């Protein structure tokens, strides 16, 4: 154990910091859940790519920097420190990208990864269906082979970024007689293909963030099958591992929120409930614990370890921490807590309400926390399924 950055890691931090300080837009971009904001974010991604920072841990040939995961953590820390824009293509770069690296053919890697790294192509993920939420094995959308194409029918829903994304990855039943986990395949679909209709859905924050996607005899080339036909479940589990386990929620995000929460408390110490002090400091400690655990996990991965069911511990921890931090912030804000950013009395505090509404989704997406608890109990603690 040696919890000191190497000289190279420090040098990389400095390089990232210098670049970010010079390049991060001084004014926040519009929300990427609006068309205009979506395009602004893509522009930013292009700039990030040109600077060589879009995909720090990816191999150079796919548009990355060839750095290791520790450097990625350092980059994330600098990224949040610099208040850089949210990553519009997170479904692609953090979830699908690593899955393509593991399961993709050389042609698929060359075809998809560089354009993903630059956000020329932004991705949505399509697991959920009206009748397949927590019970993902109940997926009913079908993709039936017809020569060198799949003919897709059915519906996906809650696809984040779906309103403006260019591609969707998801699971479809390629064997119509199959049940549950069998007979599913992982397929990459261009959202502009004939037969595909995207209908945006407004989220709790009144913005069109996710979408329903309807497939009506849509034809997708068999070249876009990821992994083996009928083995989509295994492929998707690897994506889910990344989502819960590591990439989607790097600790810097929560450390940033925790530091802001401490600052908010200090500003309002005289006027808020003194009992909140303990909750504020507990939040800060939990954000640190999350960071420490992530460094531990990354160190383990670099030594050849794998992320397994313990990703579920992670998902519960960060999502509940995020809700708690925002709840405490709203308590500190008192009567101002309900104001939207544009209210003149809000004085910038409206961001906390926005963040709170965002945080509330954490225990639901990426597998609800109840499902994660089932996984921990059954797969880590060995309790009986039935």
């Amino acid at each position, binding site marked *: *154990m*040696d919890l000191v950055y190497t000289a190279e890691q420090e040098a990389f931090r400095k390089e990232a910091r210098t670049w970010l300080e010079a390049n991060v837009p001084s004014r926040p971009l519009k929300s990427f859940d609006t068309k205009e904001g979506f395009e602004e974010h893509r522009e930013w991604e292009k700039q990030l790519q040109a600077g060589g920072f879009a995909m720090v841990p990816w191999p150079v040939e796919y548009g990355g920097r060839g750095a290791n995961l*520790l450097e990625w953590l350092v980059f994330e820390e600098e990224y949040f420190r610099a208040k850089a824009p949210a990553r519009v293509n997170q479904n692609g770069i953090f979830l699908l990208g690593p899955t393509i690296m593991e399961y993709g053919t050389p042609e698929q890697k060359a075809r998809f990864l560089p354009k993903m790294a630059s956000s020329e192509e932004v991705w949505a993920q399509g697991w959920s269906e009206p009748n397949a939420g927590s019970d993902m094995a109940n997926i009913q959308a079908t993709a039936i082979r017809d020569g060198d194409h799949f003919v897709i029918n059915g519906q996906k829903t809650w696809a984040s970024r779906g309103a403006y994304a260019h591609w969707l990855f998801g699971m479809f039943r390629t064997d119509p007689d199959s049940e549950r986990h069998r007979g599913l395949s992982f397929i990459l679909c261009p959202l502009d293909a004939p037969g595909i209709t995207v209908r945006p859905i407004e989220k709790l924050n009144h913005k069109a963030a996710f979408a329903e996607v309807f497939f009506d005899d849509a034809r997708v080339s068999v070249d876009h099958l990821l992994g083996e036909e009928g083995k989509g479940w295994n492929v998707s589990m690897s994506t889910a591992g990344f989502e819960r386990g590591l990439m989607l929620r790097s600790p810097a995000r929560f450390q940033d929120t925790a530091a802001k929460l*401490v600052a908010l408390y200090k500003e309002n110490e005289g006027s808020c409930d003194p009992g909140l002090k303990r909750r504020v400091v507990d939040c800060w400690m939990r954000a640190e614990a999350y960071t420490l655990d992530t460094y531990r996990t990354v160190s383990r991965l670099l030594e050849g370890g794998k992320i397994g069911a313990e990703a579920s511990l992670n998902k519960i921890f960060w999502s509940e921490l995020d809700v708690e931090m925002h709840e405490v912030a709203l308590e500190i804000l008192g009567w101002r807590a309900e104001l939207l950013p544009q209210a003149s009395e809000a004085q910038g505090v409206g961001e906390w309400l926005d963040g709170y509404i965002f945080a509330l989704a954490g225990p639901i997406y990426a597998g609800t926390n109840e499902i994660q608890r*089932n996984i921990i109990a059954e797969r880590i603690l*060995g309790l*009986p399924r039935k």
Partner: protein
Amino acid sequence: MRFTFDEDQLLFQTTLRDFLSNECTPEVIRKAWDEGRSHTPALWAQLAELGVPGLLVPEAHDGMGMSEIDSVLLFEEAGRAALPEPVIATAAVAAPLLVELGDEALAGEWLPRIGGGDAIVGVGHEVSPLVVDADVSHLLLLQRGDEVHAVAPDSAEIVAQPANDPSRRLFKVNFDAGDATRVAAGDAGRSLWAAALDRGALAAAAQLVGATDKLITLAAEYAEQRQQFGKPIGSFQAVKHMLANCKVKLEYARPVVHRAAHSVARSVSDRSLHVSMAKVAAADAAQFASRQALQVHGALGYTWEQDLHIWMRRAWSLEQAWGRNDFHRSRVEERVLEASARLGPGRTFRGE
């Protein structure tokens, strides 16, 4: 940057785990309780053969010459086994304190005896002023303000203070502080006691992690085996989720404790902050797991017969040891709310 343990460290941990699961069984612990003691000389001698009391004793004094990074996993094992021996005071606190005192005669006399398993040293710090196992100690290191006093047990009055955990035998020690007993004072004494507190709290936190792990294992095993409504109670989701919650708390306490071990071993400037974070996280996890483990066991868990409470009591008493959570929480609060505190991404391993 590398947040993992070496093979050797992990091997030592499994060796100690195997040893304790054979030698420090609930029967052994209960026998000691029944005889009104917690320390078992034969067990201590075997631990000395493994190197446990002398983990932090320098090689020059016939010890293992290890650091807290090595010992933290071993303290976890002591907690997993609910080992009732005075390992925290003697091995984790007294040995390095005797090294740091810089008194060659004292170090030369006591360190080899600690490592050899021939001396138990009791420590009394003002944060938890009662002394564990003072009646079986060969030397007492006691705090008076900033001063460190080395006191021969037979020159002091030792008054038993019966407490909740029979494995934690507490004593009030009255002694005459004077030139003859004083071995450090002033700034030197203050910093010695500060380090002693951090080492004691770290070792207690590590034991709490081990004890929590054991509580979860006991409850999970019981939940698999106990049947109601025609199936194992572990198949009920309410039971699953209780234990899953325990596991989340445990796994997010563990790295905090491991980092604190690194901070103590390397004397980083935020050492005390890191130790307090570790103690809070570990004690919270342990308290929570004891409650849930008891609930999962039902009435059976509420009996003296059932072994569960050996670990529940450890969890309670280790929370008391070396600063309760209110003490450690305040230390964290003070640091975090300080005007000069630098928080946020990128600061975890570097104060900047």
